[in-house]
């Protein structure tokens, strides 16, 4: 993380923050918090390994947010929401795409690779293990009961992250922007969640509309 512009030794203390923020990207992948040292690759691997172990019942994105944003403080809400939408729109398993995006954001291509390996390895090992004992497990009715409990935790995690994201969505914006963003979120939720329209076409319409509205709002309230 040293460069002619960003070298902390050359910059007076009071200018460090600004200089770090304005400095050029060091390796093509600008970091969320340029003032912090880069995330160690081993920590990145361990974090996604933890997510892979905890991600039962469809809450993988939620556990990813909890680990990387809440617990580690590595990513911002904007990074997460951009990565989440990308991961849903592009082909591929959403949690894997999200891990790749966030890993790349934190540590470039190698970071993305380690994030995916960290996420998939425990999932791979566990599914093989469960596959081997499933015939034995499925003989017991308690298996289904416990799995539904595990799924309920996953739903809880997802709801909590949804609430956090909603809170951040409204932070530091002009009133008009808040109302418009809430309406876009609500309409998209109704279409995909309640009406159960297919995700891809809905997102294909909603994203360009939402981006154009964001551009227009920026004209009305710059930086709002």
């Amino acid at each position, binding site marked *: 993380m040293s460069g002619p512009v960003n070298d902390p030794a050359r910059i007076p203390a009071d200018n460090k923050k600004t200089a770090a923020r304005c400095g050029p990207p060091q390796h093509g*992948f600008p970091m969320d918090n340029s003032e912090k040292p880069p995330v160690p690759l081993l920590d990145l691997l361990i974090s996604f390994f933890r997510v892979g172990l905890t991600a039962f019942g469809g809450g*993988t994105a939620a556990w990813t947010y909890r680990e990387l944003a809440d617990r580690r403080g590595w990513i911002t809400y904007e990074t997460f929401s951009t990565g989440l*939408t990308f991961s*849903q729109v592009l082909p591929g398993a959403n949690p894997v795409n999200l891990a790749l995006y966030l890993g790349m954001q934190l540590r470039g291509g190698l970071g993305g690779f380690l994030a995916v390996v960290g996420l998939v390895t425990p999932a791979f090992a566990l599914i093989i293990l469960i596959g081997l004992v499933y015939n034995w497990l499925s003989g017991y009715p308690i298996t289904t009961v*416990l799995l539904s409990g595990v799924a*309920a*935790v996953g739903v809880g995690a997802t709801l909590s992250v949804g609430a956090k994201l909603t809170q951040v969505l409204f932070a530091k914006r002009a009133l008009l922007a808040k109302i418009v963003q809430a309406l876009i979120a609500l309409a998209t939720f109704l279409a995909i969640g309640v009406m159960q329209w297919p995700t891809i076409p809905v997102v294909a319409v909603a994203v360009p509309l939402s981006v154009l509205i964001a551009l227009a709002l920026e004209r009305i309230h710059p930086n709002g």
Partner: protein
Amino acid sequence: MDSRLLALILVFAPLSLVSFGGGQAIVADIQYQTVEAHGWLSNAEFANLFAVARAAPGPSTMIVALLGWHVAGFWGALAATIAIFLPSSLVMYFSASWWHRNAGSPWRIAIERGLTPIAVALVFAGALAVMRAMHMNPVGLAVAAVCALLIYFTKISAYAMFGAVIALYSGLFYFQLI
């Protein structure tokens, strides 16, 4: 290379590129390719593996690991997993690289702002989809609500929560309350 491994890769790698929206999009194609086209397993066996994949952690696409295992053991599982994740990951890699190169442009800021409400909607829609698929009972809803509050307001570990819920459900099951 073992011809069965090659066959697994040739089945799953193309499906990876069309799995828009995630694993659910290609489950029907996976079933067709493995059961009908290649006759690697019966429909009943496929249904069984599908149930395992839903029960296990991680993306539902992991069913390919079980299918690979069924066809060619450990190396089959590994080949199938890499085949289903690598092509789509390359697409994501090049898209994200392009995206990161364009940091700071006004368009990018507008795109990030515009994606924000969509992401919120997708998170809640995802929770609703799981609730619907699981036919959640009142106990499940209560557990989900308590977990949501705990995760929102505390730093409780996921493992502690899973442990507590498994203990609770075991107790309810034991006393035939669920």
